[in-house]
């Protein structure tokens, strides 16, 4: 173990594997939350994870950068065994960006400082260089003129776009989104999805937990349907929406579409 696996994988996952789950289990006390997850995400692939609330989507995505520890099975990310003892998890996390439902911007820092903090303090990028890149990223997500604002002075949509810029600041190979638009007012959802859509075309590996089915249909290479801690179905979007095989998928789709 340890080196990236180069052989092809399941549906849509050809080429180098960025993320691989093998029979992953996770419990919170007596609650069995992930019940044997097997999943491969190819480098550059965009995977959207959908499923009912409480089905384990957040837990699944949070295991990728070990914000949650797993109880059994293994996860390999960018060739690194995530759960193995001796794994330098901080080094791995630098290669994985994460965007949260509640934005989690640092409220005591300006937009610009939010984006610069990790590059300067974690990666040791010189301040001037980090600042230049941060400004560039903020422009890219449409926050250019607000770089001096504190998060409290920004709308939810603006905060989430800053959070995306922050996640990109470390030049990650993978970016994880956990319901990035669920805390937003409807009129702000679009501006965030637009940024994500742009990102999907850059070749970065994306795993997105989302209820935005329009976005999933348009941007995803593959949709993974999770229910009750298991992956029930994983298909390209057109097949998933128009030709769901499993009863549970159909029931879920009938509720949200």
């Amino acid at each position, binding site marked *: 173990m340890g080196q990236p696996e180069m052989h092809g994988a399941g549906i849509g996952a050809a080429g180098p594997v960025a993320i691989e789950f093998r029979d992953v289990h996770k419990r919170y006390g007596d609650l069995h939350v992930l019940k044997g997850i097997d999943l491969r995400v190819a480098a550059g692939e965009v995977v959207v994870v959908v499923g009912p609330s409480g089905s384990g989507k957040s837990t699944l995505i949070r295991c990728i*950068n070990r*914000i949650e520890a797993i109880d059994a099975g293994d996860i390999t990310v960018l060739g690194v065994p995530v759960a193995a003892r001796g794994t330098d998890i*901080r*080094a791995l*996390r*630098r290669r*994985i960006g*994460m965007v*949260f439902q*509640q934005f*989690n*911007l*640092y*409220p*005591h820092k300006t937009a610009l400082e939010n984006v610069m*903090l*990790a590059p300067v*303090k*974690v*990666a040791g990028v010189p301040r001037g260089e980090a600042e230049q890149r941060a400004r560039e990223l903020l422009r890219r997500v449409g926050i250019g003129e607000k770089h001096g604002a*504190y998060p409290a002075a920004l709308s939810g949509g603006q905060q989430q776009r800053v*959070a995306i810029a*922050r996640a990109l600041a*470390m030049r990650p190979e993978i970016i994880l989104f956990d319901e990035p638009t669920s805390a937003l007012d409807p009129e702000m959802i679009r501006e965030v999805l637009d940024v994500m859509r742009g990102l999907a075309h850059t070749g970065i590996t994306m795993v997105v937990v989302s209820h935005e089915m329009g976005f999933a249909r348009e941007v995803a290479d593959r949709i993974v349907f999770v229910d009750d801690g298991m992956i029930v179905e994983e298909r390209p979007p057109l097949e998933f929406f128009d030709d769901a095989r499993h009863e549970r998928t159909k029931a879920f789709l009938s509720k949200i579409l």
Partner: protein
Amino acid sequence: MSWDVLADNAGLFWHGFQTTLLLALASWAVAASLSIVVAPLRVAPLAALRAAATAYVEFTRNVPPIVIVFFAYFALPNLGVELSPFAAVVAGVGFYGGAMFAEIIRSGISAIPRGQYESATAQGMSFVQAMRLVILPQALRLVVPPLGTETINIIKNTSLGAAVSMGEILGTANLVGSRTFAYVVVFVGAGVLYLALTLPTAAAFNALERRLARR
């Protein structure tokens, strides 16, 4: 009543005032340094570190600070450590204040949403970096008022110096009183001198709180 006693002993009282000020500054520095390390340890990932920090906080703040001062001054020499009265008071008041500060700061830390720590560590920060760069700057702002109250307690606790024969404010008042029998005058004078330290301190913390609130 002869208020002249104060004027006649102005030099002594001035020296006592300065000594109290120095004791307070040194004790505060000890308390602040201890607590800024101990408070994060109370939520550290390693259980052994958490336990050590909890033990320090719970033992220290549940013992009268004078016990710690006496221990430092009278007991430590038996263990081969000689402390001056000044050092003994700073150790006692600083140690006690450190536990109080640590508890206050910990309450601030626990008021910070968990997502702050998660996004910091998801970016590759260590526990120490996440605390220093993300959590503590937010937590400390929340607890400025209780930190001010405890800072004033530190100033007041330096009066324990009188119990180990120091010439700080209280010790000086006691000394002058025993020479002149003008006890009413000297202790009122001592109270006024403490107020000259504590009231500006309270005002400074209020100003700091208002300034942070504006941001």
